[in-house]
């Protein structure tokens, strides 16, 4: 597959898009783990929801 004289523009466009999408995914996954960890720590310290159910339950 030949990309012609403007190959650098095409490849950069796709690379930037892939990089930002991967960063978004990593941020969301990391945020999810952080929130779960903070909820577990709070529950372990004895703080429970008013409903009495676990805050990490789905």
């Amino acid at each position, binding site marked *: 597959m030949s990309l012609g004289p*403007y190959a650098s523009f095409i490849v950069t*466009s796709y690379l*930037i898009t892939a990089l930002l999408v991967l960063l978004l995914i990593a941020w*969301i996954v990391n945020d*999810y783990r952080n929130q*779960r960890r903070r*909820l577990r720590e709070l529950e372990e310290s004895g703080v429970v929801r*008013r409903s009495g*159910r676990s805050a990490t339950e789905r």
Partner: protein
Amino acid sequence: MGGLLESFLQHCLESVNAIQQKREAAKVYGGCNGYPRAMTLIDLANPTKFLSLTARLLPYLVTGTAIALAISLYLAATAPDDYQQGATVKIMFIHVPNAWLSMFVWAVMSASALGTLVWRHPLADVAAKAAAPIGASFTFLALVTGSLWGRPMWGTYWEWDARLTSVLILFMMYLGLIALWRAVEDPSRAARAAAVLTLVGALNLPIIKFSVDWWNTLHQPASVLRMGRSTLDPAFLIPLLVMAVSFTLLFATLHVAAMRNEILRRRVRALQMMQVCATSSDVSAASSDSQPV
């Protein structure tokens, strides 16, 4: 007169009883109007039910998005070169879906803003807040890939024309909304302010869409979403539409996952506040005990 009042009160009592019986029936059948259903729209307003739904839905969304992206990348790679632009036409396959999604995400946020202001739906502001960083990313990508496409085709990375400027304003509004969410600590107060700003910002969407028709611009006019047939050849249109579907699926996946995170974040906040209240009441009780009587 007394008899009239008595019959009115009797009527009210019967109505209340009938409503209570209907509610009980709805609880038994798990839905409204006595129809048994797995999950009603009202159930989705409950964050716990929403979390349970996302746990079931996310694996399918992730798989579907990955397959769709793989197919669309293959179609983009194997699409023929344009007779004028050559291979640079391949930038269109990522620039256009990003540009569409930049506006679509704001439209989703506007619907959520209505949900916050009019119906006070518990998940509406969660949806709006979770969508903002994703929409900002798509808008940023639309601007960058547009610049990288513009340099070889127009001879410039940037031109202060109506389409480019209105999309840049959209990007700044996304950043403003994210800043607003972070600046106001109470989520419910932030939600109302953000909802108003979102609805005001929605005025920019028709300006972006029709800017190429209203003003002279370097940007080409609409060639896919237009009255009549698309002006694009099917060899380019099909990969473009498949990529647009893939990016929409990507947005749906990221949005659902980010909403789940936001619900958990609010639970953390609620538990932290309970912890602070418990600690302060313990301290005040201890200090009152130590007071000389």
